[in-house]
């Protein structure tokens, strides 16, 4: 498939925003049971939510460049019963609303105790909003990934690994960002976020590698024989019915050189997993926000390449009809 930059930015930006929000709610739930204590917790959560919201808005903005008619985008919520894209269109603004409410509640300190069963466990309204937001966050991860995973004849995508990878990679980048953010705002949380960021990054390394291994062994169900219905082992296309190319030759091929295509794979493996893991370990030791910030920037840049590769690697069966001019 042709990797569209609008979709690459959409999926990576909202992934990082979602991961950052998950990190904030994680910190608050740790704090609720007194595992950690945060000085000036409200502004930490409020500004963190603002950054998450900013990433989500940027992702939403990028997505409009994918549309031929962005002014009609409101229509795309209609078919949520059948279309994962429609479900994503509903899940993204709903999640953004919860991030906004969560951040606002902390910013103004509206956080009444609504439930206090025993002394250590304090029911805070904002935590409940955060938990509903977390559910919406996972709904959004699933919707985004299922857009790709539900197309059964794009065999590289049609796997539960697609959903796992979208979730883990987004969460990993968000937690890395949270580590860098906490190094500035709340140094007491660096170890918590940094440890989780490293664990999630390394888990994502395993699941993304599993997807790469799976995809390298794919046996395509469609062949040129089934495409035109002629049983012969030697079939060559002589003409595709157009001379200057068409939508079919532009949309479904990545048009990158094979060497470049292959090097991207190794490049993103290094940039998404190995370099950030090292930078996270170093930054956590020295409590250095520059190293941790670099870890996020490198990981996010790597994720752009990862997403490019994700699209480019998918081989659409229609390509069987477009092999030669």
């Amino acid at each position: 498939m042709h990797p569209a930059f609008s979709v690459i930015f959409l999926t990576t930006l909202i992934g990082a925003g979602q991961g950052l929000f998950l990190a904030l709610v994680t910190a608050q739930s740790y704090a609720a049971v007194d595992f950690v204590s945060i000085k000036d917790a409200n502004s930490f959560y409020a500004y963190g939510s603002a950054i998450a919201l900013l990433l989500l808005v940027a992702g939403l903005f990028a997505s409009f460049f994918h549309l031929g008619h962005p002014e009609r985008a409101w229509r795309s919520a209609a078919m949520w019963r059948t279309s994962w894209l429609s479900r994503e269109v509903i899940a993204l603004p709903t999640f953004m609303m919860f991030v906004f409410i969560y951040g606002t509640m902390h910013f103004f300190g509206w956080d009444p105790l609504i439930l206090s069963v025993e002394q250590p466990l304090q029911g805070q309204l904002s935590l409940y909003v955060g938990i509903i937001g977390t559910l919406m966050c996972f709904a959004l991860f699933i919707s985004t990934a299922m857009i790709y995973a539900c197309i059964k004849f794009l065999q590289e995508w049609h796997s539960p690994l697609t959903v796992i990878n979208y979730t883990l990679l987004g969460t990993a980048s968000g937690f890395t960002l949270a580590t860098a953010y906490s190094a500035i705002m709340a140094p007491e949380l660096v170890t918590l976020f940094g440890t989780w960021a490293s664990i999630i990054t390394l888990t994502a390394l395993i699941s993304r590698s599993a997807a790469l291994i799976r995809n390298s062994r794919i046996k395509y169900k469609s062949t040129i024989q089934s495409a035109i219905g002629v049983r012969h082992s030697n079939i060559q296309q002589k003409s595709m019915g157009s001379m200057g190319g068409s939508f079919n030759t532009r949309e479904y091929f990545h048009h990158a050189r094979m060497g470049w295509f292959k090097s991207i794979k190794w490049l993103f493996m290094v940039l998404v997993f190995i370099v950030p893991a090292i930078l996270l370990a170093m930054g956590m030791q020295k409590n250095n926000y520059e190293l941790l910030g670099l870890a996020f920037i490198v990981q996010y840049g790597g994720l752009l390449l990862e997403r490019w590769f994700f699209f480019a690697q998918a081989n659409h069966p229609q390509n069987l009809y477009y092999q030669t001019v």
Partner: protein
Amino acid sequence: MNANPGYAGLQEGSETQMTQLALIIDLNVCVGCHACVTSCKQWNTSGPAGSMCDDNPYDKDPTGTFFNRVQSFEIGTYPNTELVHFPKSCLHCEDPPCVPVCPTGASYKREQDGIVLVDYDKCIGCKYCSWACPYGARELDEHQKVMKKCTLCVDRIYDEALPEDERKPSCVLACPTNARLFGDVHDSESEVSTIIREEGGYQLMPEWGTKPANHYLPRRKTRIKIHDDELIRSDNPLKKEGVKPKKIIDDQTLDDITSW
């Protein structure tokens, strides 16, 4: 109670959709002349839905939107080759994977005749439906920025202003070798159903379960089997005894009798 749920499902399916219009394309007689391509473009670019884009038609890198394309495939190794011309358009699947993925409902399958259509006024141009079509039958119009595809000339086949024999898709009327047939594949007695049944009509990429309504007819060779004993008569009475009749030298010939 039905022991075979698949069969029951088929029954229900055919009840909800009485008619399924489709094209039958006969690869045995298609000569690859592209008349269907040009007539399709002419009819559909002149329709009320607006023109289909056509960039650099007479220049370098010509490109544009087409509902129908004719491709050519060489089968076999030289000198034992055969060139198959392969017209390709939307197959109007009975279970179209492109319809449920559309987020706006712009892509839909008509209940009354099974035609898969795009509402150009609702399409947001997200291209998701084209990803979800394994045949590459949908093309984005680069100027109107909406998804386009074969409509089976829905603005023509029901037009009562046209003479009845012209109420067919444009490509069908244009085909000089009659390689394209149009009809209802759910009606078992229709011309198209009969020909699918009798001439070995098949569907493309059956592995995805899309159940395309359009069918293709394979190349067919007309051969007769001639056995050796039909060339040399084994029961020829003249050869039966192994002795050929010889001329009797002493006998009178016609010349002997008639010459005086």
